[in-house]
């Protein structure tokens, strides 16, 4: 991605807000990102278009998965300094609590980084970080040109 390549050329880390705004699906979901203590923190305000169950109402399980997967992707970009997006190979999402119609947050960490593949864990919460509503474990493939 050009904005990642440009950050590398300029010898700095990519701007997370700029990166997320450049990805149309993330912009559609309303995902924004900041960096705190060298870790990416994602934020997704509630919107009607995120609802899966209008009766409760609850966030769509796929929206929860999308936020967790985005946290995994941007964390791998942030920590490895790659210039192209990693490709998801497989993911497993555990749903712990229903997603309420309020702002959600997500963070990820690399559990193991190999030469070509990264094992990453993400967590999502709403009003209390100690009470996650969902978690993700997954493998992402790093772009071949970087290895």
């Amino acid at each position: 991605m050009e904005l990642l390549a440009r950050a590398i050329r300029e010898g700095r880390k990519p701007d997370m807000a700029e990166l997320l705004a450049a990805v149309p699906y993330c912009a559609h979901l309303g995902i924004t990102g900041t960096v705190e203590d060298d870790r990416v923190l994602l934020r997704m305000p509630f919107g009607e278009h995120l609802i899966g169950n209008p009766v409760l109402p609850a966030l769509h399980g796929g929206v929860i998965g999308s936020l967790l997967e985005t946290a995994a992707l941007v964390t791998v970009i942030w920590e490895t300094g790659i210039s192209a997006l990693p490709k998801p190979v497989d993911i497993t999402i555990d749903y712990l609590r229903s997603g309420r119609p309020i702002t959600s947050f997500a963070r990820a960490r690399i559990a193991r980084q190999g030469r070509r593949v990264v094992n990453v864990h993400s967590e999502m919460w709403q009003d209390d970080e100690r009470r996650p509503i969902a978690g993700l474990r997954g493998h992402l493939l790093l772009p071949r040109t970087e290895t």
Partner: protein
Amino acid sequence: MAGGARTPFANALGAEMVLVEPGRVRIRLPYSERLIGNPDTGVVHGGAITAFLDQSCGMAVGSTLKEPRSFATLDLRIDYMKPAKPGESIVFEGECIKLTREIAFARARAFEEGGESSIAIATATFMFTQTTVP
């Protein structure tokens, strides 16, 4: 969260319900810019694939029920076999494999419309909750 025939999430992305029969559903997702995960290539975001696989599994479970019951996703496993071809509609097929008193098991597959090879496959487990949908 899965269950209803259509979700505001799916409506907002222009998805169409193509088939609903007991234990089997098919959803068609026309390609659009909002789905893009890689702005350089136009490839659809993995999260969008995840979302419609989740919904296909949930609807497949819902379609087997004689009376509406609400249920929650316990877990969802996705294998991404290949990127979706930019510009092509994606078809999602969900199937309910097994229903027990408390748990339902489902599978789903995503593929390009008019193609055969899988973009991704999913395995999901659901638990019926006590509250009933009015």
